[in-house]
């Protein structure tokens, strides 16, 4: 345990970076997912095709590959982001595919009559989605969204191998100096567990307030 206390500043910075990565990627992924899922349920065929292609491509290629492609392949076509931005981009694009699928199941659970009623009131497609369908959809899929977010938190560890100084990278760096892997990685594991627990707690609070019981 001493190892963890001796290197507290390193671990602290690592935890902060992990949280930043998770929060920013969550925001980015939700934004992309809302766009993708709107395309998916839109009446325009090319948009639906785009949404299906997006989900298939990002769910069927591993995150590490996206990360390496974004970091090393984009500069080849003269697009340069810094490493942290690359990590957020990869995590957002990748997780968005999963969020989009969860949101779609939420939209499917909203009764058809809701959208029909909105249209009868004269609302357009976008208004119908943003004011009537999506709010209800979101509230019914809080739990799956929580699970995907915990997955996103765990996935941030993958960025350790590409120069992002997050928690796993901090553990790696401390382990090089101390060669004491067990306390170092168990300690990091416990912190991940606590962060995941925090996400669960926030979700269950939200659920109590928001979930629609049908």
């Amino acid at each position, binding site marked *: 345990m001493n190892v963890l206390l001796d290197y507290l500043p390193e671990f602290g910075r690592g935890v902060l970076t992990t949280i930043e990565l998770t929060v920013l990627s969550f925001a980015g992924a939700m934004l992309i997912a809302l766009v993708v899922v709107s395309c998916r349920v839109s009446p325009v065929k090319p948009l639906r095709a785009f949404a299906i292609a997006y989900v298939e491509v990002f769910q069927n290629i591993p995150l590490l*590959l996206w990360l390496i492609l974004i970091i*090393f392949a984009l500069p*080849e076509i003269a697009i340069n982001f810094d490493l942290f931005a690359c990590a957020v981009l990869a995590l957002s694009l990748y997780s968005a595919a999963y969020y989009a699928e969860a949101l779609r199941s939420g939209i499917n659970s909203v009764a058809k009559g809701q959208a029909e009623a909105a249209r009868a009131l004269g609302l357009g497609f976008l208004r119908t989605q943003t004011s009537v369908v999506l709010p209800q959809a979101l509230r019914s899929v809080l739990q799956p969204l929580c699970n995907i977010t915990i997955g996103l938190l765990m996935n941030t560890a993958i960025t350790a*191998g590409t120069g992002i100084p997050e928690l796993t990278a901090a553990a790696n760096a401390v382990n*090089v100096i101390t060669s004491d892997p067990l306390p170092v990685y168990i300690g990091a594991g416990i912190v991940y567990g606590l962060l995941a627990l925090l996400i669960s707690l926030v979700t269950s609070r939200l659920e109590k307030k928001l979930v629609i019981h049908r």
Partner: protein
Amino acid sequence: MAKASSTRRRIALMCAVVTFGATAGACSGGTEAVPGANNAAQSMLDRAPVATEAELAASPTAMAIKQRGELFIGASLETPLMSQQNPTTGEAEGFDATLGKLLAKYILGEPKRKIITTTPQIREALIQNSTVDAVIQNYSITPKRAEKVSFAGPYFISGQAVATLKGKPDISRPEDLNGKKVLVATGSTGAGVVKELAPQAQQIAFNTDPECVQALEQGRGDAWVKDLPVIAGETKLNDKIQLASGTFGSDPYGIGIKHGDESFKKFVNGWLKKIQDAGLWQQAYQESLGTVIPGEVPQPPAIGSVAGS
């Protein structure tokens, strides 16, 4: 055009490494040298010593390996000149790879060994839980590591070196790294050395050496710090990077074995002495590192000459 295609190859290679790293590690085990593919290597193996019954009997670990019929070695498959998988033969080639084969022959009478690809983060754990019998992977002997595992050797004295892009002469001493972005491999000794000699350097860690080189080429870092053999190997493959300075720090490589297994350590040290006396160590160096590092074949280090070995 040539440059672009070399970069494309690198990307393709990297993707392949990432995707198939695990599988490659799994299938590389136990493959014998292709007959006639490398006659020099074959004749070297023919001349390699085999342990006597008495020598084997003195080490329970060596006996157990003999009974299993295969030596499990923790090593890398992507370190040029040290241990790199040849894509056409599937064989690992380089200084460490050759030593691994010679050790397998010494114990088993034939170079039958399985390579388990390891990373610096998990080497100690793999030795402790007996997944591997020995780690031969430019494994620097440090006092901290010596508390967890035992080191036979040292079998090679290396040092850290700095690589930069060609035409960037502003780094000639380790102190010049201060204030620069320095690429290091996750969990390498280089990371610790840079922290000590250039505390103001900003370290950026990548998992593999090819990733470090690619990041250097794309300007994500000003310099790349790693053991001399690795840098020498990469500068041979890549004409955009150069060795920026001489080595600093003394970095003795050891063969990692289970902590406190004195009889096996003695056994491995005895073998090292034999291959040094027979000139096999020197030949292995000449065929790998010696093709890039200028100068004569160095004197093999005296066994047990380093704290922790």
